[in-house]
């Protein structure tokens, strides 16, 4: 591929900035030198601050800063290390954040993204964990380990500025602690975007209304299923979505009774209906202490069978790694991929093998492909059963769909898949990613993304999205912009969206109509990519090698670019340009006119 690579990551600051310098100034208590000329200009320069530019979201406050030198990579860059209440960022001297290259915000670390913090002096090297942990020396260097595999090393200059170095270090420690204590991840950066988008519609259905579920059900052609409203008040299970699919013939009262016999009330629900007639279901483990009567057993059975004569019950955890395994493997993998990894090049492969991460990826893929054979070619219904039903069930069910349904491999389809099987289904993102500090940390979602990446590697022409898109999704997991990944279950997310709406009501001149907080659609999700990525970058989400025959309506309009290389993107541009020209000259070309010409192309003709 022509982007990405080891140790590269993209983390982009919000871009939809409003040209309201007055407010920005107040928030940051900074003075701007020149009045902004245009919106773009504002973005370009953000704030003039001590000669450095900080494109900054509203509500961001600079807590401390110190001049320093970025180390570890060639060349060393002089600049400034800034700590705000949202992030830690390094601003190289004379560096301008430009619209065309927002990628260069390589030096931004959202506070939640900071995994480890180390202060180094010639005498000692300490890890700073808690706000109480006092720094007993003036740091000469600070190491920030991002959870997304990045490492920022900043050396401080001597010569009178030591207090500043000390201050900024302590500020980072404190800001980080505060941000995780209060869990105030959302809101601040969103207020701005919230106004500007007004009643913007989510780019993909968030599955928070019965209508969304009904539409999706129809799309899948699941005619013997209906949307159940039984959990509308989250009284069946807080970790379940408010709506889900149950068999037509099952009454809500039966659903309620049957679900009571499953772990945390997560009874069997439809995940995906295969057009061949089989269904893929998921459910939690049986609640061990329950004592079901005959009637209950009957309704549990009928819900599991859902009209099929026989159903394969798959123990999800069989042959798959445990959560602890995944966590350990990921830690090892991260250690291996950090720029300061001590593994020598000739030992890299066995070190990689030693992490067992790829082993786990393999077992997930193998199991998913076995299940997909069952569901598709043998037209057998499958129930995935995992005790909690919130981790590997989502992983397997998503993988099966990716393997069997071409729709799931489009950009739109994949995002709805993640929204349905992970976000709505209540994958405990916050706990698993270890943001809360509670145990049971395990990056199951990242494991899933790696599985998808492997598929993308193996079948580069079958996916509408690119590696870059997966990378963006990977990085978004820790960006505190939206609620999508920063809640443990739909109930908490729903609670929060009430608070969330208040942020959209901040008064701002120029906007007379802040949207009323009742519209659930005004909630922003991670899928609002244009909040964080430029058009240029969003275009790169698109896999240029994807065969357009597979997708009816392309998710993105293709743009023309001036320069084209002999790459697929270049050719596609050339192609669309030429097709435009052809169209101009031949206004009436009916499809019947299209005649097949002999194929002079060796590779293609041979494959026939």
């Amino acid at each position, binding site marked *: 591929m022509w982007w990405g690579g080891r140790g590269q990551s993209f983390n982009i600051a919000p871009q939809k900035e409003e040209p309201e310098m007055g407010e920005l100034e107040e928030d940051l208590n900074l003075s701007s030198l020149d009045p902004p000329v245009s919106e773009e200009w504002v973005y370009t320069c953000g704030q003039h601050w001590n000669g450095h530019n900080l494109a900054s979201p509203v509500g961001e406050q600079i807590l401390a800063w110190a001049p320093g030198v970025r180390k570890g990579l060639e060349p060393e860059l002089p600049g400034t290390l800034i700590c705000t209440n949202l992030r830690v960022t390094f601003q190289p001297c004379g560096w301008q954040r430009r619209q065309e290259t927002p990628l260069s915000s390589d030096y931004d670390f959202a506070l939640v993204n900071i995994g480890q913090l180390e202060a180094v002096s010639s005498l000692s090297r300490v890890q700073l964990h808690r706000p109480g942990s006092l720094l007993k020396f003036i740091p000469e260097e600070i190491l920030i380990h991002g959870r997304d595999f990045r490492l920022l090393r900043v050396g401080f200059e001597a010569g009178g500025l030591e207090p500043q170095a000390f201050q900024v270090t302590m500020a980072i420690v404190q800001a980080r602690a505060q941000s995780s204590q209060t869990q105030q991840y959302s809101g601040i950066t969103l207020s701005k975007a919230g106004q500007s988008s007004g009643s913007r519609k989510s780019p993909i259905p968030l599955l928070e209304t019965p209508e969304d579920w009904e539409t999706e059900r129809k799309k899948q052609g699941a005619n013997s299923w209906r949307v159940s409203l039984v959990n509308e008040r989250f009284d069946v299970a807080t970790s379940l979505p408010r709506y889900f699919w149950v068999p037509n013939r099952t009454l809500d009262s039966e659903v309620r009774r049957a679900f009571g016999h499953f772990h945390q009330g997560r009874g069997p629900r439809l995940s995906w209906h295969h057009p061949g007639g089989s269904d893929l279901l998921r459910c939690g483990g049986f609640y061990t202490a329950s004592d079901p009567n005959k009637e209950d057993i009957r309704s549990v059975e009928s819900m599991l069978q859902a009209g099929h004569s026989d159903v394969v019950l798959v123990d999800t955890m069989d042959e798959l790694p445990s959560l602890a395994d995944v966590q350990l493997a990921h830690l090892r993998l991260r250690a291996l991929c950090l720029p300061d990894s001590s593994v020598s090049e000739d030992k890299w492969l066995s070190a990689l093998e030693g992490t067992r991460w790829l082993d786990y990826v393999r077992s997930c893929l193998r199991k998913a492909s076995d*299940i997909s054979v069952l569901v*598709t070619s043998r037209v057998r219904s499958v129930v995935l059963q995992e005790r909690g039903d919130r981790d590997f069930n989502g992983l397997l069910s998503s993988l099966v769909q990716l393997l069997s349904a*071409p729709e799931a491999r489009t950009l739109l389809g994949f995002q709805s898949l993640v929204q349905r099987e992970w976000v709505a289904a209540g994958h405990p993102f916050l706990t698993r990613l270890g943001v809360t500090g509670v145990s049971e940390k395990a990056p199951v979602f990242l494991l899933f993304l790696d599985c998808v990446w492997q598929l993308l590697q193996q079948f580069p022409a079958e996916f509408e999205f690119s590696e870059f898109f997966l990378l963006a999704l990977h990085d978004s997991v820790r960006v505190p912009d939206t609620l999508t990944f920063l809640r443990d279950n739909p109930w908490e997310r729903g609670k929060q969206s009430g608070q969330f709406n208040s942020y959209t009501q901040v008064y701002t001149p120029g906007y007379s109509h802040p949207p009323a907080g009742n519209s659930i659609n005004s909630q922003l999700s991670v899928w609002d990519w244009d909040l964080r990525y430029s058009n240029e970058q969003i275009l790169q989400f698109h896999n240029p090698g994807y065969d357009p025959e597979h997708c009816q309506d392309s998710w993105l309009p293709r743009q023309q670019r001036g320069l084209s290389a002999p790459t697929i993107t270049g050719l596609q541009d050339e192609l669309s340009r030429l097709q435009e020209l052809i169209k101009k000259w031949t206004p009436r070309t009916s499809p019947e*006119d299209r005649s097949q010409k002999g194929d002079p192309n060796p*590779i293609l003709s041979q494959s026939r």
Partner: protein
Amino acid sequence: EIHTNEKEVTEKEVTLHLLPGEQLLCEASTVLKYVQEDSCQRGIYGKLVCTDFKIAFLGDDESALDSDETQFKNKIIGENDITLHCVDQIYGVFDEKKKTLFGQLKKYPEKLIIHCKDLRVFHFCLRYTKEEEVKRIVSGIVHHTLATKRLKRLFLFSYATAVHSNTPTNPKNHTVMFDTLEDWCWELERTKGSMKYKAVSVNEGYKVCERLPAYFVVPAPLPEESVSRFQGHGIPIWCWSYHNGCALLKMSALPKEQDDGILQTHKNFLDGIYRVIHRPPYEIVKTEDLSSNFLSLPDIQTAYSKFKQLFLIDNSTEFWDTDIKWFSLLESSSWLDIIRRCLKKAIEVIECLDAQNTSVLLVEENASDLCCLVSSLVQVMMDPHCRTRAGFQSLVQKEWVAGGHCFLDRCNHLRQSDKEEVPVFLLFLDCVWQLVHQHPPAFEFTETYLTVLSDSLYIPIFSTFFFNSPHQKEMNLGREGQDAHSTPLHLLTVWDWSVQFESRAQALLQNPLYVEKPKLDKGQRKGTHLKHQRQLSLPLTQSKSSPKRGFFREETDHLIKNLLGKRISKLINYSDELQDSFREFYDSWHSKPADYHGLLLPHIEGPEIRVWAQRYLRWIPEAQILGGGAVAMTSRLVGMMEEVRSLQEKINERHHHQTALPAEAPSLLRSSARLSSLFPFALLQRHSSKPVLPTSGWKALGDEEDLARREDEFVDLGEV
């Protein structure tokens, strides 16, 4: 004495195709050949044949395979043919036990397993064959493949004698063979090295040295008589000049002596040589001793023999067993690490030539193994001409064939010594593959080209890889010529690809992504290109011109050097300090966008060195991805290029005749079949139990009942 009794070939199998001069030696019928298909094995009955060129299996139901499956068919070597030189190891199975076969056999096996050097594995079951036929075929095969041969008994000569009357084909197709003085002068001109270096004919008729080619290039002021002083040892021989004037030189070391007196003479001689090449206008020269501090030939041999074992797999159980420990097995073979070290060494040399304006002198015992490897790698990375097909072939001619790489010994073609068998050339091809894999648009040829080139090492109708030196070739041809005929034998060169492949198959050797350099020096344009590529006129994204290019800069460089008197005639050796400058050079190159027509460096970090899947995994059905891999992208890309071309044509037409021709919309021609990731190989394994991603929505496939009845390509996996 082995059964060479002639049978009536004409009456025999019509399907056995014999080359001119090829003789049938022995055969056995009702042999069962096992076919690997994932987990299950089936067999085909047929006849096993051994000729003086190949071992062939003639299946009884071959007809089905012949037609459309094998578009990428080799005209010389069929799918079930093994040339005698391609056999690596022969095993016999006696009562379920596998034993290596060699020498005289006392017992005859019930099953014959042949491991080939191109990593195919054949299983022949002899249980249903008549006993005397078993004896004959097994001892015949073992003898003809494993016994020591004389050079003159190579099939090469029988073939050449047989086709002698035929008019020789036009073999060169722009490849410079480096067997004449003109070729060397041409190369000197091309690299602008003729100011400081001269082609000499002192070794004409191999009077001075049998290891050196008849013509070669040395520094201009070097007195010719010093060449003969130590039979060509201790002489700096020119390989290539960079555009800044620095040159890559090689030297075979003087023989090791105990006697102090002789050592002193050596020293004096070398001092004299160094005085010559350190004098202006020559740049400072760094010597790089490849015999010490670098790979040794036994290292390479051990690594490859471990490495190839990973791919010589008998059945799919073995595959899945090794799969679990794949990475550590791969690492313990250290083949990939050897590749990395070669690439790294080449980058170090490049750093001297490019960043430090220093010439480099490679020194090795015979200057014919690692010297060839390093100097060709340097040229592939620095000289875009070497990344064209003609340029690459000329490079192999110059550095390997004329450079006296002992192909005969290194490939062990004559089975004389297993110790000498070291896959140095294959290592080179693997290094080039890493470059091709990392920078596909920079090369005119494809990985398929490299794969078939590596296979051609074992086809004894081409002279290219069957001699130890140009001298040996000349000697063996000349005598034959005088004895039997008035004219010397005409031997084929491997570069005549039409001998092996039809033009349709040859197209797969050509990289569709390659774009010629927009402005080409006239002398440099040698390669042939697909016609439509020029019409595409796609400019490169980042075409930066090399800042150092051009006379002006070169001239001033020298001026400055002379003015400042930077004439340090001291040998500088590598040190830790250099390690830093290497890192800096490497990092700074990779931080900039690559110029495909300029200097090209590979990534050499741990994960970046890959397994050459097409060559090594192509016969393992478990390892292929149907409809996937880079092939999927390439075929899509080629389709689009074709479409762009036809649209462009249409636009041109319309520009010229506004009165339009009948509207003919672009025909969207795409492949209906799904190519394997190991395309164009591994075409024959059609049944795969791996779930293939369906491409179309299910809705298109009809209603549910219909689907339920469908028996798909999926194989029963049993209950989950």
